[in-house]
């Protein structure tokens, strides 16, 4: 099948920042993304788990964004502005997508 080059951006960010991140993405014209729940993890600020938690603090989400390579920089800049002072990680991988008209 015909595949098209694209970038897969994975942003793991605090749950309280989810809305701010997606707003920033929307403003940068990035309207395609998928949010996965995260149940736990570990990093420089220690280990955590969502089990039994009530509050929104102390949890993270993973935002996955498939995007045309040309638009990567705009995405990263807007995402970075949100992530900058916060804990979380951003990674970008090469990928190929079906139905390029969607990205």
């Amino acid at each position, binding site marked *: 099948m015909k595949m098209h080059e694209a970038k897969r951006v994975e942003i793991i960010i*605090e749950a*309280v*920042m989810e809305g*701010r991140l997606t707003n920033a993405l929307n403003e940068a014209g990035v309207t395609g993304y998928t949010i996965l729940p995260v149940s736990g993890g570990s990093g420089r*600020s*220690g*280990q*955590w*788990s*969502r*089990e*039994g*938690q*009530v*509050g*929104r*603090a*102390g949890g993270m989400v993973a935002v996955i964004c498939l995007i045309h390579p040309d638009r990567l920089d705009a995405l990263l800049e807007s995402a970075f502005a949100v992530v900058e*002072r*916060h*804990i979380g990680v951003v990674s970008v991988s090469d990928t190929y997508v079906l139905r390029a008209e969607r990205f």
Partner: protein
Amino acid sequence: MGMDGILALAGANLVSPIILSFLLGLVAALVRSDLSFPEAVAKGLSLYLLFAIGFKGGAGVAAHGVDALLVAALFAGVILSILLPFIAFAMLRFLTRVPVIDAAAVAGHYGSISIVTFVAASSLLAGRGIPAESYMIAVAAAMEAPAILSALWLAARRGGTAERVGAELWREILINGSIILLLGAFAIGWFTGEAGLAEIRSFIVDPFKGVLCLFLLDMGLVAGRGLRSSRGVLSLGAVIFGIVMPLVGATLSLAAGLALGLSFGGVVLLMVLGASASYIAVPAAMRVALPEANPALSLTLALGVTFPFNLTLGIPLYLLLAGAVTGN
């Protein structure tokens, strides 16, 4: 009532299923059992508790009427919530070496309130047949947010780098889920009154204490896990803070409650609000506004030290103190 009385009351308090459920959770977490509540179940229980306590408060107001004291009590609550963080901040800087930004964040937690501590105290009062102003639940809701203002001011003023707090963050804080649910249920309870309460009494009144047990079991698990994974986060000074600060908060609230002329039960509840520390609304706000603050410190103090202290010894103590002063 002397030391004997305190111990007797604390003892009686300790053997309630509610407290023991919390201790069970704490112990299970400390011995690293895999007992755990799914996040959705914990949230479901807390939605139930907020709805029920709000509704019952409102129905109580409908039944007993409301007076000028309500406004004064709300006002006093807001002032306490704004004021306590300054005391907490000073005490932390004196007792510990935590950075300014962390001290400010912790201070915000202690100005705000813990609704489940409030619920446990209400439950104890009800069990002993001590009436209290039903609108205290509205006071609780009013005390959730103002402390955040003080914390951010402290952080900005004292060298921290609080994020520009936009209208967006204020909106989030003021209409955060637990405030809306508490006040909304309060309004519904008030509006529908006795008739409304009768319709749903077997859901929000009868099983209430049992649900509270399960929720406290979960809180014990979370607190115990927090304590375990943040060994080393707490200095001795911090632990002292976690026990002395609630006493200070309770004392100030006692003064406020007496000045207002609240009933004996009302004074106790205000003390509990002053003494307790937030573990839901403030942590989320702090993550957004003070991302550099260490969340483990605030949460371990609030949930691992102050919450168990209030639940076991604090509440009976405040009851005795208020009793001694008001002559009850």
